[in-house]
């Protein structure tokens, strides 16, 4: 909870105009539940008009952090200012400027999509006419017009999440919290949600996004804060962190399984700048190559083509949360989901059952 390095820098930030400044500033935030230090001294900034990804395993304190910043929980210590309002001292004013989409859909399941949005419009003091118009607009925008009259309980997971985002957008919040917005969604609906988030950011929203997936953080966020056990363990631009953890792994499957060594040798001899070592994996019949940019991916394929090596398959893999933690901290995360981060889908299903 000390000021840490950069006290001077923080003071200069105070004099900056809001535009281009930070929409969210968190300093030494602490929230304990009994002995559990859910959030244990977190500092973070979200620059206006950008997406900050908060990456961490289950139980890292992501949701508690979001709940503190959205006035659902009162922090034990530290301070947080969102859109210029103090979360503890000015909660009412703050609620006019924020939107929250949680891990579990926060819409009324018994109400239709339209009725949900109309109700929220009315709660935000829109006139009846404006609330109706805005609800229709949002349904249209989130491709829910056809399902407008059906109760939300009958929606698919993706539709429900879209309705949830629509509900958060009714009041045109300047700061939007997305707490694991795609947990439990299949890849197609996940992409739909991503598209929407990107669109909101283009339209000027500031987003604080929590996620368990490196892939999601990479897609949506420009900066990343990695937290574990309630503490920040790494922060920086997504590209910086990606370089640190080694970016993606390219998996090359030559048509001729005996050509593994030839592939590896070709790549090693090519002298591609910054390209990590190629490792043949005879058991799977593939060669693994760590890459850090799309250009490298193109270069590798071009090189193999030039050498006349036929490929049966090629794929890229982002590092899993486990690998990220290993690379950043040299140790495993406190509660990284097993093999695949998507396993948390299972937990989602259990909780919602």
């Amino acid at each position, binding site marked *: 909870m000390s000021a840490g390095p950069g006290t001077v820098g923080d003071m200069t930030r105070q004099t900056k105009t809001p535009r281009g400044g930070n929409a969210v500033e968190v300093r030494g935030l602490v929230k304990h539940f009994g002995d559990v230090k859910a959030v244990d001294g977190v500092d973070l900034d979200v620059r206006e008009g950008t997406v900050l990804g908060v990456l961490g395993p289950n139980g890292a304190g992501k949701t508690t952090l979001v709940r503190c910043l959205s006035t659902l929980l009162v922090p034990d210590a530290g301070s947080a200012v969102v859109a210029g309002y103090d979360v503890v001292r000015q909660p009412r004013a703050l609620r006019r400027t924020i939107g929250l989409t949680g891990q579990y859909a926060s819409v*009324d399941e018994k109400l239709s999509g339209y009725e949900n949005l109309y109700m929220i419009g*009315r*709660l935000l003091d829109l006139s009846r006419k404006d609330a109706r118009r805005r609800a229709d607009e949002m349904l249209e925008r989130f491709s829910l017009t056809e399902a407008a009259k059906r109760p939300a309980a009958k929606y698919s997971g993706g539709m429900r999440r879209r309705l949830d985002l629509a509900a958060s957008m009714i009041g045109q919040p300047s700061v939007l919290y997305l707490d694991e917005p795609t947990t439990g969604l299949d890849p197609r609906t996940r992409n739909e949600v991503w598209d929407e988030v990107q669109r909101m950011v283009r339209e000027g929203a500031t987003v604080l996004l929590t996620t368990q997936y490196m892939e999601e953080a990479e897609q949506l966020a420009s900066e990343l804060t990695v937290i574990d056990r309630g503490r920040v363990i790494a922060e920086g631009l997504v590209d910086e962190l990606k370089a640190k953890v080694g970016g993606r792994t390219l998996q090359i499957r030559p048509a001729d399984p005996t050509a593994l060594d030839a592939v590896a040798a070709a790549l090693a001899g090519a002298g591609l700048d910054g390209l990590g070592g190629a490792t043949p994996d005879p058991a799977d019949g593939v060669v693994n190559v760590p890459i850090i940019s799309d250009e490298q991916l193109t270069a590798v394929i071009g090189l193999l083509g030039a050498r006349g090596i036929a490929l049966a398959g090629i794929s890229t893999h982002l590092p899993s949360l486990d690998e990220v933690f290993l690379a950043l901290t040299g140790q495993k995360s406190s509660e990284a989901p097993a093999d695949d981060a998507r396993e948390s889908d299972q937990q989602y299903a259990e909780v919602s059952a």
Partner: protein
Amino acid sequence: MSAATLTAPATKPGADEGRIGLRANLRHIGALARRNALQIKQDPESMFDALLMPIIFILLFVYVFGGAIAGKGHQQEYVQHLVPGMMAMMGMNIAMAVGSGVNEDFRKGVMDRFRTMPIARSSVLIAKIVVEIGRMLIATTILLAMGFLLGLEIRGSALEFVAAILLSTAFGAALMWIFILLGLSLRTPQAVQGMAMLVLMPLQFGSSIFTPTDNMPGWLQGFTDINPLSQLADAARALINGHGAVAHPTLITLGWAVAITAVTMPLAVRKFRSKT
């Protein structure tokens, strides 16, 4: 913390602007009450208690116990005794359902949304009560309709009749705050239901709702006399039958209603605020 004050980011000056005005508050309550009403529309079974309970209970008591309590052939007089008492009971039964309803509601993400919106947090609870009062009036209407079918006579004035309905409704609304508090305090709707039954049974049967209390043992009479349901039943009975003391039981009932609301409403709203 002196260092922290240095680094604390600048906030907009002034206190917490955005206090919610009365008109806005009423609009919010309206929007939330509409939500509760639409929920009933979506789930018509949830009206069964309000619709069927009065019918079943009045038939049960008039025909099964009526003869034994009032003597064979005196069922007409028993209807005059029972119906006003059951008006008191309806309020309690409907109020009880509010507790598990609120508990159920709270398990859903939509509450988080309400609590991050610029609305008074009490409006969510008040909207629920508004709609439940509607349900209570429907139940009372059905009860009275059944009563008239079974020969209920309004022996007091029309004004007294309306007063009886208003009094039982007001008391029922006050009771709702108790059950809302229970609903917010206990973990599952089942626990709320169980707890509510524990409160409900002794209060209902240890009262003058079903039978006159003269034949009860002295210690029990002591309880039934202070039991607000007895007072409410006595007041409604006097108003509908046009005889008996009105002022005394009415005042005691209103006193209970005010006291219950004054104590449990702030507790419930506080509980609602601090709920995580």
